[in-house]
């Protein structure tokens, strides 16, 4: 069952092409990893699907009743201004906002969900701490907890493990795996190609254009994969 269909997407920054003629689709329950070198347009592609970058041409279609407020998102970079007064709980709770519609205040249900995700990510002791005072790894976990609160059908993760140590990385990956098994679609930008081929069911390889889109099995047998691995071994 298709959830998102992208047809010939083109995204420009001024006159520089960042994403060129990319077409692919995302099915319900997919675990899609987007791989490719730095600057190959992975983040831009995700942002265009989420409506944060305008596409110059092409089409992005949400299918089977997928709505924007059923999406969770962990950005690659979140610029929050220095000294922003917000507690961890306030930040995580704000992730549930998209399911409130026009109802103004959070109910117990949303607060419970926020608490649950705070606990899941091992942030209980920081719940009432100031977000800006946390380390970057802790902030990353807070933002993942917020993303989990927003996720009803699909979650977009842009290099989610940046700045995390090994144990927390494992923990994070297993959380993502678990929600995927519960039927949530996962779209993840990853630098970790081994992780991608071992966990995803589909791969999208970006190099401004889409160099590969298909199943992991087909990907590991492809030229582009062999070149990519070879290339990174040479670095």
């Amino acid at each position, binding site marked *: 069952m298709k959830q998102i269909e992208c047809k010939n997407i083109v995204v420009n920054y001024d006159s520089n092409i960042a994403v060129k003629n990319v077409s692919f689709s995302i099915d319900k329950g997919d675990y899609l990893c987007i791989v490719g070198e730095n600057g190959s347009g992975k983040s831009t592609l995700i*942002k265009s699907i*989420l*409506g*944060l970058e305008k596409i110059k041409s092409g089409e992005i279609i949400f299918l089977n009743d997928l*709505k*924007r*407020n*059923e*999406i*969770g*998102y962990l*950005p690659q970079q*979140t610029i*929050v*201004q220095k*000294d*922003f*007064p*917000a*507690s961890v709980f*306030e*930040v995580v709770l*704000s*992730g549930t*906002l*998209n399911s*409130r519609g026009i109802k*103004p*205040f*959070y109910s117990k249900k949303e607060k419970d969900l926020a608490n649950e995700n705070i606990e899941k990510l091992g942030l209980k002791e920081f719940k*009432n701490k*100031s977000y800006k*005072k946390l380390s970057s790894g802790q902030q990353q976990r807070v933002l993942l907890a*917020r993303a989990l609160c*927003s996720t009803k059908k699909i979650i*977009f993760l842009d290099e989610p493990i940046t700045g995390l140590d090994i144990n927390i990385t494992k923990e994070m990956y297993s959380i993502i795996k678990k929600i995927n098994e519960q039927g949530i679609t996962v779209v993840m930008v990853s630098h970790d190609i081994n992780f991608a081929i071992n966990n995803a069911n589909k791969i999208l390889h970006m190099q401004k254009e889409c160099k590969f889109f298909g199943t992991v099995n087909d990907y590991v047998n492809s030229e582009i994969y062999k070149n990519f691995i070879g290339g990174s071994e040479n670095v």
Partner: protein
Amino acid sequence: MFNVLTEMLSYTFIIRAIIVGGLVALCSSLLGVSLVLKRYSMIGDGLSHVAFGALTVAMALNLTPLYVSIPVVVISAFLLLKLSERSKLKSDSAIALISTVALAIGVISISLAKGVNTDVFSYMFGSILAMNSTDVVISIALSIVVLVLVILFYNKIFAVTFDENYAMATGTNSNLYNMIIAFLTAITIVIGMRIMGTMLISSLIIFPALTSMRVCKTFKSVMISSAIISVICLLLGIIISYVYAIPTGASIVMVNAIMFVIFFVVGKVLNKV
């Protein structure tokens, strides 16, 4: 002290100033938290100059000031917001241009309007005598509307202030809430400008938020404390303005400045502990 207070409260114009001023202080301090954090405080400043221009033109043409200033300032708020969304740098200079032109229009219309008994000084720096009873009724109604909307949209305001992109990506209409914030700010500035003075009204937006952020570290506590700080400063400011016969806006700004210094020191001490 007590005598002064009872004396003050025997004047209708002071009671008006306290009621309207208090409501404006509440609205502006709550909106101010979001505006300051979004680095939009320049918009407040720009709008207050536009409000001055609109006010003086209305006076010169013998129109009711509120009826002219509200639409003019609301439209300007949307324009300034659109400008800031494009580019911070360009918008700062654009706001500066708009401010000075509005100011120039204001000063010209004051000097051309012979028939009106115009007191430029009180327009600019505030007066407790400024409100007639129609002004008061409209102001109270409008500020209650602003207050209710701020409370209803509190969680959305937090989300778009903290991370506008995230809110947008996950299905919250950030642009709409930015427009609502700009709209409410415009209304608040128009209501508050007679008491505070058009040159000083923007400090009512900026100061309480900055002051409470010295000490409070969660969004909710910053909102609540800036509202309290704002109202206290306003009351003290009105009393001082009455006792020493100085412009109300100026005396409220000075009280806010002193409060800021106190919170600044307290914040430093708390951080050390």
